């Protein structure tokens, strides 16, 4: 169901625009090329965020060991990203490719194809539809999210499902549209932490997005239909957290957990120290950024004739603004640019609903192009360190961090070594640089857990970090055996040192034959 069909009269008459569906592979490929080129370029400049590193490492660790998978899958947030990363990591030839970036590039291609099809179904020519879709995919806020390895692109894809469904829900209360909307809300929630804030912000708008006839009969019933998928999957997720993580909020307990965003280090984010500190500032700056970054949207809201569509689109845009305010006040949001990509599907659906009669092709392309500049401009207001680094990387400057280089070098050293004890959760880029977690004895295994309890490790190698370093303070091996990094195991031999990392080899090993099954 396309937005233009969503706006077709309820009598069942449908329009038959020139289909561009057959060209979707072309736009998918173009989207892939665009996103892939951007990611490769910034990657060459050393732009690899901790978020991307964490996702990459988590996927590799989860794939290597059943116990790790069990723990990670239950407590990783957002879980859909992990699933997507693991599926892509299983594909042959992805061994040395940053999996999260690959996933995001694929999603970028999918967005280009989906948006081009939507515009074409709305009556735009194939070329216009494809170009406009590519211009929107090229939006700096979306491209930055793709390069940063965030879950936002996947959540935007879910938003692409939600937006036309929301229009259909408002128009006629079609049951499959309501179900799609409910499912899309759940997908957004579990695709990106920012998506969770967006879903939260949408809650008050849902009644207004619903068909008045049904709301008049039972608003509780309507809300239940729309929210049950979110509520149930959330309950299921909390339940698995409890089963495997020991607490229903295990996913949010780490100070650097995704759902907490920037709250762990407020001082590093100009947005939170400035505009985003209060609701008024967040509202004003957020509104301005929306207008600047997505000029299509105000035009659409001004010109669209269908009142129901205008209301739905305005509410969806309003919910993004509300999410900016909520996420700022809860100190999650490092910059509104993280939430601005959610406006792009709203603009696409709005443009498709208006059709070329009200939004001629040249104007569509012009506004989309203006959005590129606006997006860049919005990122320049109180930018987060990541945004600054991405801008620098785009301009060809080296932005790689020393810590990442040290992790990568240490990971390369570990290649070919098996039976290595390590706390992978705190290992940064080590596991990806090593090429995988096979052969590592992780803290999720019964073997290493037992070793730590008895304070005597049975593996041949021990990789651990300086307990005085920020990450080393949370390295479970270093914490359990504080002298091990400095002194090594009894009779042990220091094999390598790199930054905070040391690799010890045990020459006198504890007989591990009675502890089978721990090694990956």
């Amino acid at each position, binding site marked *: 169901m396309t937005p233009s069909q969503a706006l077709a009269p309820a009598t*069942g008459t449908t329009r038959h625009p020139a289909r561009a569906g057959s060209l979707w592979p072309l736009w998918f490929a173009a989207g892939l090329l665009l996103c892939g080129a951007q990611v490769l370029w910034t990657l060459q400049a050393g732009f690899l965020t901790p978020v991307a590193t964490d996702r990459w490492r988590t996927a590799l660790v989860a794939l290597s060991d059943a116990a790790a998978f069990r723990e990670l899958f239950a407590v990783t947030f957002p879980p859909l990203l992990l699933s997507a990363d693991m599926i892509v990591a299983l594909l042959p030839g992805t061994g040395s490719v940053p999996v999260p970036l690959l996933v995001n590039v694929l999603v970028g291609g999918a967005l280009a194809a989906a948006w081009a099809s939507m515009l074409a179904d709305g009556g735009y020519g194939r070329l216009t539809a494809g170009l406009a879709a590519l211009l929107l995919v090229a939006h700096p806020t979306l491209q930055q999210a793709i390069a940063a390895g965030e879950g936002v692109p996947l959540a935007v894809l879910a938003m692409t499902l939600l937006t036309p469904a929301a229009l259909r829900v408002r128009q006629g209360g079609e*049951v499959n549209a309501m179900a799609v909307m409910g499912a899309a809300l759940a997908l957004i929630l579990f695709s990106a932490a920012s998506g969770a804030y967006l879903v939260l912000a949408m809650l008050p708008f849902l009644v207004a997005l619903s068909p008045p006839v049904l709301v008049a009969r039972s608003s509780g*019933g309507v809300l239940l*239909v729309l929210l049950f*998928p979110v509520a*149930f999957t959330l309950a*299921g997720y909390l339940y698995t957290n409890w089963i495997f993580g020991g607490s229903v909020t295990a996913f949010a307990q780490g100070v650097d957990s995704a759902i907490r965003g920037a709250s762990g280090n407020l001082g590093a984010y100009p947005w939170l120290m400035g505009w985003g500190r209060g609701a008024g500032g967040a509202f004003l700056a957020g509104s301005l950024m929306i207008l600047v970054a997505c000029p299509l949207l105000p035009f659409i809201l001004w010109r669209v004739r269908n009142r129901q569509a205008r209301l739905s689109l305005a509410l969806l845009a309003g919910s993004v603004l509300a999410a900016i305010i909520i996420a700022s006040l809860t100190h999650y949001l490092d910059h509104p640019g993280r939430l601005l990509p959610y406006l792009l599907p709203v603009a696409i659906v709005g443009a498709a609903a208006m059709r070329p009669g009200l939004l001629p092709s040249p104007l569509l392309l012009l506004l989309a192009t203006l959005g590129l500049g606006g997006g860049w401009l919005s990122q320049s207001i109180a930018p987060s360190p990541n945004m600054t680094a991405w801008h620098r990387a785009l301009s060809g400057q080296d932005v790689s961090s020393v810590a990442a280089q040290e992790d990568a070098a240490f990971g390369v050293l570990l290649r070919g070594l098996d039976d290595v004890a390590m706390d992978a959760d705190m290992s940064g880029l080590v596991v990806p640089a090593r090429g995988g977690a096979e052969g590592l004895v992780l803290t999720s295994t019964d073997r290493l857990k037992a070793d730590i309890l008895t304070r005597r490790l049975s593996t041949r190698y021990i990789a651990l970090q300086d307990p005085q370093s920020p990450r080393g303070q949370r390295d479970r091996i270093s914490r359990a055996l504080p002298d091990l990094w400095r002194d090594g195991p009894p009779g042990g031999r220091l094999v390598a040192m790199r930054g905070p990392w040391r690799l010890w080899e045990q020459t006198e090993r504890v007989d591990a034959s009675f502890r089978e099954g721990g090694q990956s």
Partner: protein
Amino acid sequence: MDFAPPIGELLVARDLLRLDQLEQALELQKKWKVRFGDIVISQGMVKPRDFYRTLADRFGLAYLDLMENRPDPTLAKPELMQDYARLLVLPWRHQGDRVIVATADPGPETLLFARRQFGPDVWMVVTSKFDILWNLQRTFEAEYSHDAVFGLADMDPENSAKQVVTPQQGLFLYACLSMLLAGLAFAPIATLITLNLVMAVFYLGNFLLKTVLVWFGSNARVVDRKVTDEEVRALRDEELPVFTVLVPMYKEPEVLPILAAALRRLDYPMAKLDIKLVLEAGDRETIDAAKALGLEGSFEIIRVPPSKPQTKPKACNYALHFARGDFLVIFDAEDQPEPDQLKKVVVAFEKAGPQVACVQCRLNYFNADENWLTRMFTLDYSLWFDYMLPGLERLRIPIPLGGTSNHFRMDVLRKLRAWDPFNVTEDADLGVRLTQKGYRVAVCNSTTFEEANVSIPNWVRQRSRWIKGYMQTYLVHMRHPVDLYRSVGAGGFWGFQFFVGGTMLSGILNPIFWGFYLFWLLVGGTFLDPLFPTVLLYLSLFNLLAGNGLFTYLSIIAPVKRGWMNLAPWGLTVAGYWALMSVAAYKALWQLIRNPFYWEKTQHGLSAVTKQEVAKAMASMNQ
């Protein structure tokens, strides 16, 4: 040349018909293109006996009351009983060398038939069609009865549930049980893991299929606007076929007025309706109630002689001998079909093509808001008829027909020997059999409203019969799985496994898994860990969370199509309804073993809303 005055004028001349009635009847005759007699009788303008008496005079023949002057039973030939019913003719008695033949339709075809069968000197007398039908039933009671019970079993024994489990199936079950016991004895953990895996895959398949079905079924443009009002309005009355309406009833006189009123409300030429109230001969109270309603000539009462099994399909098979329609539909006594249903079905048949032998309309309830059970039952039916059956149609999976409002092409129904009297969900079985024989079942966006069960014991009785019938249907059609696979294709085969097999099996299995889960929640510990290797653990966890969540959600969205949003929150309590289903499933399993053909009667008329509906129906009939 025929110089006799038209029958209408004769009736007016005898003060049996008013002039305005004559004009009205002639107008309708022009519009409907049916015989004048059918109009005046179906509209209740003239009493049948007066009409046929006048008809006899019109043809210069004698009139005979067969109820007072019974025919000689030795004259009628059993091999011709279908022709007698079709032509409304019956040999009465000998007079000398001549045979006197009674008929309600003294036309050339009847005369030709009579001369061919009884010689050129045959004499004709006129009688009422009701007398013919009544005497046919008396004369051929044994033959009709035998055919109703054993027609399918004699002609197509492989498709009859007369034999519950075939020897091959028994052997297969025995082998499975032996393997299971041997496995438990020699490799208990591996056996239990295998069993667990099979069950997990079954649950996964079940819930994936139902998700897909609901997805397809929720497409309003395809499903809910399949037949539009414009298409119905475009129909011309004279082109409409004759529709037989069967209403099998047993001891439910109290709800009869509902159906009578609903049938009178049907937007269909009354003269093209052949309505048959199918009653058990011993059910005096319903027979008397039907007579007391003073129904028009379109309504006929068929008395089904007592025989075993005493089931609805047997009664319908019996009544089928006297059906004269091109199409046939079954309604229950308390049914309220939407007025345009028959016309919508005609359009649906036209659009569907010759392969479609049956059109199933939706069922739902008029007393949805009466109590928790009726609400849940309404959600259940909404999901089943509004979503799943359209999904089955779309995916070309055999559709197990619902109890009523299934409309058949008469020729196909007769060819397949209609319903299996040994199957207690004969409708579900027939739906699958039709698909197996190369026909298709379509669904139609018209609803018949019924009375939802208001009492749990009554509901359990009804549901246990349905599940038992599903078990019978599954066993019958899985006698030759390869043939089934060939006839319905891969999609149809697996759809049948999960939809029919899954529906009955999930009720049996659910309590076992719930029990394990609750026990683990209460006791904790790792004693179940060996049965859940990692992959299986995640599959089971997925089934537990996604499966239960999805089925609950399906119950929540079930009433949305009808806009009954107030029922949506009740979907959250569906787990209680599943528990009831499991009770019914175990009862069904027990009955399948102990008493497979026993028909658990559902008592109607218990609802307060039904009583109001009866009162309304009576009031409308008295107007």
